[in-house]
């Protein structure tokens, strides 16, 4: 059979049309094999430059044994995160690990989470092992985070190590307009005050309870922590969208018999007090896609301005004393009882972020500050994230600490910090 030449021409045109048509939507989603065991993770490579304040007492204490010749210090480290997850419809095993490598002599491995989960029904779940809890509605601070890992307000979304525990959760939904859902979570926390190397007193087992409601479109949690030998804590939090672009949230907690450390007559004084801590915040999205997060945080057990002044005098005396033993003791007290980035009582957190400004693709800058309302010192941080291709993230992060030398942020040993991160996900 012989076809005319023009029919071949039309055949080519038609074939081309089909090819082009297919090319336009040639995005067939591959059928994913539903694997039960899955691995994922990321490698963070971080290079940091520190501009140190060599006149700071904290710097003199930190480096009294081996003083650097320059105020500019650097740090290069690798942080691999490796996670595994095995799940069936009702059983699961979750493993999350973290490594930190500075050199062959200085490397560590952390088990962030390792727990088994059994879900007998959609309403119930039972978990046992080491896992992370994130209680509270606040972004940078959580006064009701009774069993949370210690959060870094400078990087609240960073993964943290979990808590050795067992928990039971019950969830119930309702078709009512008022109460839409209810859940109850009980967490049993065995004592970590070990006698010898392996044993703890059974009576020191703690229990934490969270009862949650979605009531009139508002998230509400009632929380409690009961312990024989640790502070008892009670809390309440809420979150609600008051407009389509504004979310408000708050937390309040009463901490009974909480240990508080101050300096008096150049010596450490510890006592136990009952204190309230609270937080109010909002998240706002404007028409240009800029997100603003603002939070006010009151840390009831924090130091007052006078108490912080006495603490800085204590550090000054230790740093300027020629007695090396006294220097070491002062450093030990500082690192044991006054650690953390928010030692005082009242803070304002403000973060502004805007994705892809001026049509700069894959680029998100954000600016945040933590302002100490008592002494007017603050930190100011600029973070720029660039994701040129899928599964890779470059982060530039610059932070400066501002304030007089008697303020919390002005007295820090670091004046400026600049970090470069490369994060590769798999």
């Amino acid at each position: 059979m012989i076809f005319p030449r023009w029919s071949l021409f039309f055949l080519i045109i038609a074939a081309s049309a089909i090819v082009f048509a297919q090319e336009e939507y040639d995005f067939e989603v591959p059928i994913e094999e539903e694997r039960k065991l899955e691995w994922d993770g990321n490698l963070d490579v971080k290079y940091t430059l520190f501009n140190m304040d060599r006149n700071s007492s904290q710097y003199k204490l930190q480096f009294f044994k081996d003083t650097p010749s320059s105020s500019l210090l650097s740090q290069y480290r690798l942080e691999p995160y490796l996670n595994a997850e095995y799940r069936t419809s009702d059983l699961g095993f979750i493993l999350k690990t973290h490594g930190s490598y500075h050199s062959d002599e200085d490397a560590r491995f952390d088990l962030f989470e390792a727990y088994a989960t059994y879900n007998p029904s959609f309403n119930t779940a039972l978990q046992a092992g080491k896992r992370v809890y994130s209680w509270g509605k606040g972004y940078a601070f959580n006064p009701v985070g009774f069993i949370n890992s210690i959060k870094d307000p400078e990087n609240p979304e960073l993964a943290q190590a979990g808590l050795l525990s067992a928990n039971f959760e019950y969830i119930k939904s309702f078709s009512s307009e008022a109460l839409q859902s209810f859940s109850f979570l009980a967490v049993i926390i065995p004592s970590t005050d070990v006698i010898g190397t392996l044993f703890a007193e059974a009576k020191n087992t703690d229990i934490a309870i969270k009862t949650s409601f979605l009531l009139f479109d508002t998230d509400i949690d009632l929380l409690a922590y009961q312990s024989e030998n640790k502070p008892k804590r009670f809390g309440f939090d809420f979150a609600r969208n008051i407009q389509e672009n504004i979310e408000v949230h708050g937390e309040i907690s009463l901490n009974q018999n909480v240990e508080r450390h101050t300096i008096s007559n150049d010596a450490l004084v510890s006592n136990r007090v009952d204190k309230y801590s609270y937080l109010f915040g909002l998240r706002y999205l404007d028409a240009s896609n800029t997100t603003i997060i603002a939070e006010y945080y009151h840390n009831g057990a924090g130091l007052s301005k006078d108490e912080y002044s006495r603490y800085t005098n204590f550090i000054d005396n230790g740093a300027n004393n020629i007695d090396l033993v006294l220097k070491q003791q002062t450093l030990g007290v500082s690192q044991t009882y006054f650690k953390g980035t928010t030692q005082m009582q009242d803070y304002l957190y403000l973060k502004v972020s805007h994705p892809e400004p001026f049509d700069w693709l894959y680029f998100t800058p954000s600016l945040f500050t933590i302002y100490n309302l008592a002494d007017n010192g603050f930190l100011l941080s600029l973070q720029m994230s660039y994701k040129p291709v899928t599964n890779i993230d470059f982060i530039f992060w610059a932070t400066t600490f501002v304030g007089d030398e008697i303020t919390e942020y002005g007295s820090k040993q670091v004046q400026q910090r600049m970090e470069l991160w490369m994060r590769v996900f798999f």
Partner: protein
Amino acid sequence: MKFLSIFIITILFAGNIAAQDANKLLKEVDDNLMPESYESIRKLINEEPDGSKKEFTFYTVKKGKDKIAMLYLAPASEKGRSTLRLGENMWLYIPSANKPIRITSLQSVVGGVFNNADIMQLDYSTEYDATYSTRTDTEYILDLKAKNKTVAYDKLKMWITKNKKILRKVEAYSASGMLIKTLEFKDDKNFGGGLTRPSVIETYSPLYKGYRSLMIYQTIKKREFPDEVFTQNYMGRLGDLRK
């Protein structure tokens, strides 16, 4: 006078009947797009003006009129994230933070032209009231008005085929009448279970010149879920539904 009263009543009555018909048609469009409760796998592709692409794969479950949850399956940097929408309440769950955070329906969690409300779209008839605009030989054209202020777009214009009542195009407008984006529904596919519908939704916007977003459905299956799947507590466990 009597004649005028009868005339006005007739006009109002006819208008009301027309509005009822339009809302009935809108409900048919919803029914032809998705089963009321389903699970689906779809891919979202954001194309940038320079031709580069970003791709996301989602597993989505929906129940009834206002419950929808979505789990990120890919890429690795986003895997395990999930979003939940209950009416106008919306939350984002980030595995590293390990807790749901309330977000707004206008926020975009994936970038590109689609916002959360597009990706976690409820039934049109849940959020909008319809009236007939005009009609062509092959299509009905409906004007939709948001039932309340919390809906992402104040007005929609919708093109529907006359024969199979399949959605072909939606234009989204702000309250001031500005065109925000256009969604085109293409490439009809038989998903099984009697559901044949467009498998590709292409979106572009005069506000994002040169950008294009494509949503491509791989599977849509009718499936019933208990209400507890659509709670904040379940957001970290959504992947269990696929096992």
